[in-house]
């Protein structure tokens, strides 16, 4: 039997971290299930899910990874999914939309938008934002998972209004548009005529 943990690691980006981490996992008899890496502002972060032998204590896992990656100054965090109440809305039908906000940086815009999304129980599945330090140009891109029953036009108007009130351009669009304009696969494959949501 094995036990699953989700682990995040963060450090200043240097060559060799991934090799050290995976070596440590191997030492522990861990088996990687999923892993994702991001580098931002010269910092490196990994989030991974792996299965470990059942008798292995979580402290041992954290200590061994920390030790193995000592020279990189890696911070390790571990979560046991069994102890967390992970939201499970996987049965509800959703559609993917994008909210894009661009303009001159305004403090608090992400807060205002995410508060609205939270109020509507909308999950942010991906997010990227960047403020240019020289000219303060700002852009935010959020990928949202929106339940079928949400009134999209109303939400669109509300989100775009939040942007406008902060002097920013907010645009709320169904995700198909980005796939259609950049993915060379035929539109009829990208777009399921049978599964149209309410607008």
């Amino acid at each position, binding site marked *: 039997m094995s036990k699953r943990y989700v682990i995040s690691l963060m450090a200043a980006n240097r060559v060799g971290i991934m090799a050290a981490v995976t070596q440590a996992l191997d030492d522990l008899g861990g088996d990687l299930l999923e892993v994702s890496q991001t580098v931002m502002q010269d910092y490196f972060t990994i989030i991974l899910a792996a299965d470990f032998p059942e008798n292995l204590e979580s402290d041992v896992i954290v200590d061994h990874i920390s030790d193995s990656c000592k020279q990189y100054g890696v911070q390790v965090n571990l979560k046991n999914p069994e102890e967390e109440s992970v939201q499970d809305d996987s049965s509800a039908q959703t559609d993917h939309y994008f909210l894009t906000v661009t303009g001159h940086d305004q403090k608090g815009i992400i807060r205002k938008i995410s508060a609205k999304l939270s109020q509507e129980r909308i999950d942010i599945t991906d997010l990227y934002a960047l403020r240019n330090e020289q000219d303060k140009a700002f852009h935010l891109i959020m990928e949202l998972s929106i339940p079928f029953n949400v009134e999209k036009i109303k939400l669109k108007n509300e989100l775009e209004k939040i942007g406008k009130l902060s002097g920013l351009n907010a645009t709320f669009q169904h995700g198909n548009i980005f796939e259609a304009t950049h993915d060379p696969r035929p539109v009829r494959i990208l777009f399921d005529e049978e599964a*149209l949501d309410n607008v």
Partner: protein
Amino acid sequence: MPRIEDILSTLRMVRQENLDVRCITMGINLAGCSDSDIDKTCEKIHSTIITSAEHLSKTCEMVSDRYGIPVVNRRISVTPISRIADQHDTEGLLKIAKTMDRAAEEVGVDLIGGYSALVHGGMTESSKRLIDSLPLILSSTNRVCSSVNVATSRAGINMDAVKILGHKIKEIAEASRATHGFAAAKLVVFANAPEDNPFMAGAFMGEGSADRVIHVGVSGPGVVKQALERLLENRPDCSLDEIAEEIKSTAFRITRVGELMGREIAARLGVSFGIIDLSLAPTPKMGDSIGEILNLIGVSKIGAPGSTAALALLNDAVKKGGLFASSSVGGLSGAFVPVMEDAILADAVKEGHLTLDKLEAMTSVCSVGLDMVPIPGDTHPATITGLIADEMAIGVFNNKTTATRIIPVPGKKAGELVSFGGLFGESVILPVHSAEGSLPFSNRAGRIPAPLQSLRN
């Protein structure tokens, strides 16, 4: 998530570069509406249009909101009316046209095309009556558009019809003298007319279609222009093939937007998806011009030597990008050069760089033809016949669609300005060189035989 740059570049196309879906056109089959009783015919036409298109505007708006891309115009094309109205006289035709006008208004559509006849092989009595009625119809309706196909590469050019149309175009313009002959802008004379064209004024519903079908017209000269500007900013001395590549990849993306939205609108309306017409259709708005693209390619005075080659490059690259993007490309698909509707082309006319003769040469390598071309009001009808015949010959002998939309502006001379306002734009009136030097030719009856289909060198 798609790449950040991809998301931002799509957004830029919409927000800053005037990307839109230029028109969603619903083709409606009216074949079942024919009846010996004119009132019954009109009633059937009305109810068929209303039931087919009642949700068209709302659905376009909904899908437009969903993707954040404007649908500028919603239109309807119908079965050529000459096929429906064969039992009716001019009075009946007027009733039919008024019915179309009213139905279009009721469903929130600004133009309805299909007051049309196909006469390339010869004219039926019904087609004759329809052509004869054009001055009355086009000057007494607002939304009805007309087209006449006078030539095909298989049948040659029906010069009898072209001759009649030379006169009719004068009469149409005269009948709308108060609006400077604007009614003539609602008539397109075609060679090899496509049956699935969504663009007005030449749209009609062809025989080989489903009962109801959605065609999409996408445009986007602004998007192409800005893509080229970015390319040239980084590589000012780039080669023509690099320019062609840039246009192609931009055309791909524009076509995709149209297909995505068209398919969804068709699916939501429960009708067939027809074609996507990828035409660079300019508007008088700055930043939405074919002329500006030619300027960027390096033709600063449009009409100068090199203009035809530059336009050929643009037209071809647009098609190739579109064809890779979608297997449903149809209609006219190419770059339009409607003089009045394109501010930069109109400027080139004003400055004397772009003449009617050069424009005609340019139409041999692009979409449509002599489109929205104002000529002096006193032009002889046979001269108009000659202009149409030349343009038809370009289409017939090169196996392509060509068309004319010529406006002899009543009471105005070459060099004077004529303005239709809004999207129809304005231009200085073009002189017709050696205008009456071919009257005996134009006045001959008959047909120009179909060209060779082989030995084509």
